[in-house]
């Protein structure tokens, strides 16, 4: 008898606890899904964030452009000069014919026209 009564009390207690505890569906507050993230914003992005500065005077613009042009001209001039002197495309040079050569000392190709450098002691010994 006592045991049955105890069982009934326990069942009543469990039922009460189940009724009074907050269920997942019954929770209040803000829902986790926020649809505002997926909707277009009301306000467009501002076009200009900074405050407009002081406008550059026309004189400075002209002077800057002039200096820039001068620099570009100088760079171009130097580049052309280097290009010409480096003979990029293997420029070929031709010697005009020297006419009839005066052959001498029996040489058909060279007449001994030369420069030489010999050590001083050798010259002395010779």
């Amino acid at each position, binding site marked *: 008898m006592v045991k049955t009564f105890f069982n009934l009390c326990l069942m009543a207690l469990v039922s009460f606890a189940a009724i009074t505890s907050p269920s997942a569906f019954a929770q209040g507050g803000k829902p986790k899904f926020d649809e505002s993230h997926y909707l277009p914003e009301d306000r467009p992005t501002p076009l200009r964030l900074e405050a407009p500065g002081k406008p550059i005077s026309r004189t400075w613009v002209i002077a800057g452009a002039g200096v820039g042009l001068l620099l570009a001209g100088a760079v171009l001039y130097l580049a052309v000069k280097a290009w010409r002197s480096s003979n990029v495309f293997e420029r070929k040079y031709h010697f*005009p*014919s*020297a*006419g009839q050569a*005066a052959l001498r000392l029996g040489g058909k190709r060279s007449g001994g026209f030369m*420069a030489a450098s*010999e050590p001083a002691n050798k010259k002395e010994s010779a």
Partner: protein
Amino acid sequence: MHLRNKAETRLGIFLSAARCKLSKQSYTCGMPIMRCPACDAVLREPSMDCPQCQFTLRKLDSIFGAVPLHSRYLSDRSATLTTAEIERLRELLQRFERKFPQALFSVFITELPEKTNIKEYAFWLANRSQFSSVEAVGSENFDLLLVIEPVAGSVALTVGYGLEKYLSEDNLQAALAAAMPALRGAQPEHGIRICIEEMTRRLSELCKSLEIEKQNEGKTMVAKKW
């Protein structure tokens, strides 16, 4: 002592360069100064032998014998240069030939008997060897030959008849003077390179001045016609 030598060399280069500038106008002047390679006597007129020492090319044949083996651009018979250095110099010499198709710059490095005159040897080699084509004789020979004797440190730079009209002895001397510090300072590749580059520069300038002269002549001809 070393500094003094260096200063003297620089002074030499400067003076020779100055002399060359002075003689720049004589690019197209007529006869060059002709000298005997054996006794250095000035030859007043072209002759088959030197009036002072009776030197001829034929006499040298008996002294030097058979023509040594040589290649078109660079021949190193004394093993002075490494293979890589030879390759680099050959490339430079080939570039020279592309720039001046009529001319061939050859370098010949060899050890010579003690009392050999390098001028005589260079003269003999330039005439007896076949660096360029068989047809390149007389005024059609625009070749250059640099002969180096590495043991004694003697160097000679000779040119064919075709270039005599355009180059002065000072031009050749200046190219050698620029190369000598490196050649005597155990940097043969650098010295040879300097000599080739110096001659390339001088010949380019010469050709440009000749072109300008030709253009001016053309303009005056047109002006005369008008």
